[in-house]
């Protein structure tokens, strides 16, 4: 089982690398190089805050876009091109295929994030303030960004298991936007009553809570992140992703591949 899972995982990663998905890193580095000289004209304190905000937000956005763009084709492309026929005619269980595909894309996004983080830290050094202890705290924000990728990949995979790539992209991106405002949704629910309250609360809890996974602003202002939030977010990302993958598997197990 493990060899089949790892084979699908590494092949998915290899596909992303050879399809030049990681070329986005060049764009990311160019973006950082373009904005870094601008900071010289801003006061010392602001320079760091802006760089952290821009750098980490770009890292998150780049990863989310890749998760969606690659994720929507993970299953549908294999069906459309019939490569799946030669996989399922082997002793590969459908759940192994889905899980392997998920792990492969998560692996791609993690490698991508690590490389972007390296570029980001270099940009921090270049701006001239040197290494600060607070810089280590930024790793928590980066870790949360990677957790966002875990969830987003699972959601995209879920949609791609039963709908077309275009609809998968629309649904997944909408869910990302709504999830980014999930805290606001909860606050709004507190102000409403009756059925509206029930509906808004249910929606707020159902959509992925990307607000609590976004601590970029906190990190930029050197506000430490509570250890309990790190533990909670880790468990939340793991369980949310597992639920989405389980749903994908249930759908895919029954699907006739025409």
């Amino acid at each position, binding site marked *: 089982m493990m060899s089949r899972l790892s084979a699908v995982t590494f092949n998915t990663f290899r596909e992303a690398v050879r399809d030049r998905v990681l070329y986005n890193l060049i764009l990311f580095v160019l973006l950082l190089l373009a904005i870094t000289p601008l900071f010289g004209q801003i006061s010392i304190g602001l320079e760091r805050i802006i760089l952290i905000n821009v750098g980490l937000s770009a890292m998150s956005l780049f990863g989310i876009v890749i998760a969606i763009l690659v994720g929507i084709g993970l299953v549908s492309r294999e069906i459309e091109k019939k*490569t799946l026929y030669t996989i399922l005619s082997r002793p590969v269980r459908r759940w192994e295929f889905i899980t392997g595909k998920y792990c492969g894309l998560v692996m791609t996004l993690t490698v991508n994030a690590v490389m972007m983080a390296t570029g980001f830290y270099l940009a921090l050094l270049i701006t001239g303030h040197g290494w600060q202890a607070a810089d280590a705290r930024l790793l928590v924000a980066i870790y949360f960004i990677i957790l966002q990728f875990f969830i987003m990949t699972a959601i995209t995979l879920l949609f791609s298991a039963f709908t077309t790539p275009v609809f998968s992209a629309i649904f997944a991106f909408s869910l990302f936007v709504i999830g980014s405002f999930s805290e606001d949704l909860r606050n709004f629910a507190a102000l409403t009553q009756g059925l509206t309250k029930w509906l808004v609360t249910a929606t707020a809890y159902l959509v992925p809570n990307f607000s609590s996974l976004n601590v970029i602003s906190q990190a930029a202002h050197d506000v430490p992140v509570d250890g309990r939030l790190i533990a909670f977010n880790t468990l939340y990302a793991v369980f949310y992703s597992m639920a989405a993958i389980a749903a994908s598997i249930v759908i895919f197990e029954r699907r006739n*591949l025409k």
Partner: protein
Amino acid sequence: MPAVEISGLTKSYTAGFFRQKRITALQPLHLTIEEGEIFGFLGPNGAGKTTTLKLLMGIVFPTAGSAKILGRDFRDPDVRKEIGFLPEQPYFYDYLSAPELLDYYAQLSGVPREERRKRIPLLLEQTGLADAGRKQLRKFSKGMLQRVGIAQAMIHNPRIVFLDEPMSGLDPVGRREIRELILTLKRDGKTVFFSTHILSDAEALCDRVAVIHKGVLRGIGVVEDLKSQTADKSEIIWQGAHALAAVSAMVGKAHVTGEVVRGVVNSPELDQLLEKLRREKARLISVTPLHGALEDYFVAHTSEREAVQR
């Protein structure tokens, strides 16, 4: 123990969004394939050949029926270690080279690393791809891709190989290469189940064939036996459906399209039949002697026209 035993495998599906229509792609199919034989599954496009293979491979699920492969339920994923499959017009991961692709499929089939290292170069040699090197599959010709397809179906040394239209779209040289590969598989003791609508290939390779049309099995048997069924017979076509009643005993199964009737008659009875048609004032269109070719059997069993049993 039969290599494949299909018992009433059926597939139907619904088409349309608002007014859903039920379409039967495969009527209950009963078929047994013995170990070590090359079995041809013949039928025109859309006959149900690919559906049968997709059902056996677990790509689509049957509406009813079951099948056994080497005595085990066909849905058991572990039985797939014993089978290789080449889909119709295959597309492989074109960012991989042939050795990488074979290594990937071998891993999925549970072939240990040491065995993979030995088997991949051997198989590339056997399929004439040894020179392909690290070239990505996107640069391969159709014939080379088909050979890679056969290689991936054989990488885990399966006992049964299923090939869906393996010669389709190939030039004569490519077809000849694939034919030789299939014969090599037989020499190695493998069972080969292949679907095709190219009858010359089936005639040259198969021990037994089955003919399927519109999802219904129309005939099955040893190639020579099937061919002999049309030997010393003639195909006759005439205009005037009213005459059919007078000659039905002679033509057996006739195909009627409007006023045009097509039937097969034993050549010694031909004169008698022509005389009766003349008396019935039917207009003769053609008489063609059949020579006991597989094509004659195929055509006789896969007429697109509405078949009328008499």
